[in-house]
């Protein structure tokens, strides 16, 4: 067999493999691609604006003036419209026009405030951040596909910010969202993740309160109940 025959044989085998995937389709709608692209552009613009602000005014001074206790800059149902304030809050919840809930987490503070804001926006939620896992919450069984339909996550590298886009209508009946966190070495402890059940773990470096420590945002589904998720 000469070189051309060898190339042809490999080409045939690979083409056969590709052709046999004819039933496989890229099912992400064009709208979703464009939506993600627009969100990423907005994020880049906000990040640039924040950097410029930090240089001009000083991050510490601005933070103390605009976000004194880590309270949300934007309450339920009011999308962020003031980038300066939004960037300096510990977290932000913004309800999108399509019903999605955008959660931006910058600091792990005021979990109860985030929890009640999410519940007010119609998301059964349990938020603990660094506190002990709520024993009344039981992990809800799910698959990766279900996970992906419920929310998307974006971590801006190096910024210590996690953005979750939650689709409340995709939540299975009887399920709620649990948001927690782990610090230091625990962030990479696979055993801990398995004990806690089905979760997606995001690992940017978050500031924990005012201290710079490594932490991971953990998102999972739990059975909804009055004690766990308020519903």
């Amino acid at each position, binding site marked *: 067999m000469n070189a051309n025959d060898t190339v042809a044989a*490999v080409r045939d*085998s690979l083409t056969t493999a*590709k052709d046999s995937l004819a039933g496989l389709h890229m099912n992400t709608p064009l709208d979703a691609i464009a939506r993600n*692209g627009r969100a990423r552009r907005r994020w880049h613009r906000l990040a640039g604006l924040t950097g410029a602000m930090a240089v001009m005014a000083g991050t510490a001074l601005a933070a103390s003036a605009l976000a004194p206790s880590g309270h949300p800059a934007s309450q339920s149902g009011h999308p962020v419209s003031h980038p300066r304030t939004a960037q300096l809050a510990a977290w932000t919840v913004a309800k999108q026009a399509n019903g999605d809930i955008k959660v931006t987490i910058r600091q792990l503070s005021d979990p109860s405030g985030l929890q009640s804001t999410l519940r007010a926006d119609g998301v059964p939620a349990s938020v603990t951040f660094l506190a002990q896992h709520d024993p009344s919450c039981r992990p809800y069984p799910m698959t990766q596909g279900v996970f992906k339909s419920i929310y998307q996550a974006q971590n801006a590298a190096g910024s210590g910010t996690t953005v979750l886009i939650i689709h409340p209508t995709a939540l299975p009946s009887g399920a709620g969202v649990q948001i927690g966190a782990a610090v230091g070495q625990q962030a990479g402890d696979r055993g801990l*993740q398995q004990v806690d059940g089905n979760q997606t773990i995001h690992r*940017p470096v978050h500031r924990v309160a005012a201290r710079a420590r490594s932490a991971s945002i953990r998102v999972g589904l739990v059975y909804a109940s009055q004690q766990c998720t308020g519903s």
Partner: protein
Amino acid sequence: MEFAEFYESTRDDCLRIVLLNVGDRHLAHDLVAEAYTRAWMSWRKVRELEVPRAWVVRTALNTHVSWWRRRRHEVVLGNHDAAMPAEQATGVSGDLLAALRRLPARQREVVTLRLLLDLDTETTARVLGIAPGTVGAHLHKAVATLRAAIPPHDGQEISK
């Protein structure tokens, strides 16, 4: 060409090619979606490229290298939803696809562009920014490796 037209006409083929390279449907889907998102963001530049779909495939495969590390995204599933290997769906020898995934990155890029996207040597060289002769050398080495992974036909003639 508008992005919508490009997306509709190329997305399935790109997904299948990336799946053959990474072997995991969910991951391939994520990588291709990410690549198209970047293409959407840079469409004015991407649309002017000689082969925009090659850009998408290359971006998806390059993203694969740093995807988990950069986004720090980890899914813990237990045994609920084990990824379906591509070879289960293709009916093609798993050895061949495993050999494809083990190729050095540049060889795999050349195989992907030349044999899966069916580009000629000169176009492949321009897309990768290397000399045509280098494309030939990478292809020669890669094909030799892959050929060894293709099982003989069951009905092949046996010489006595």
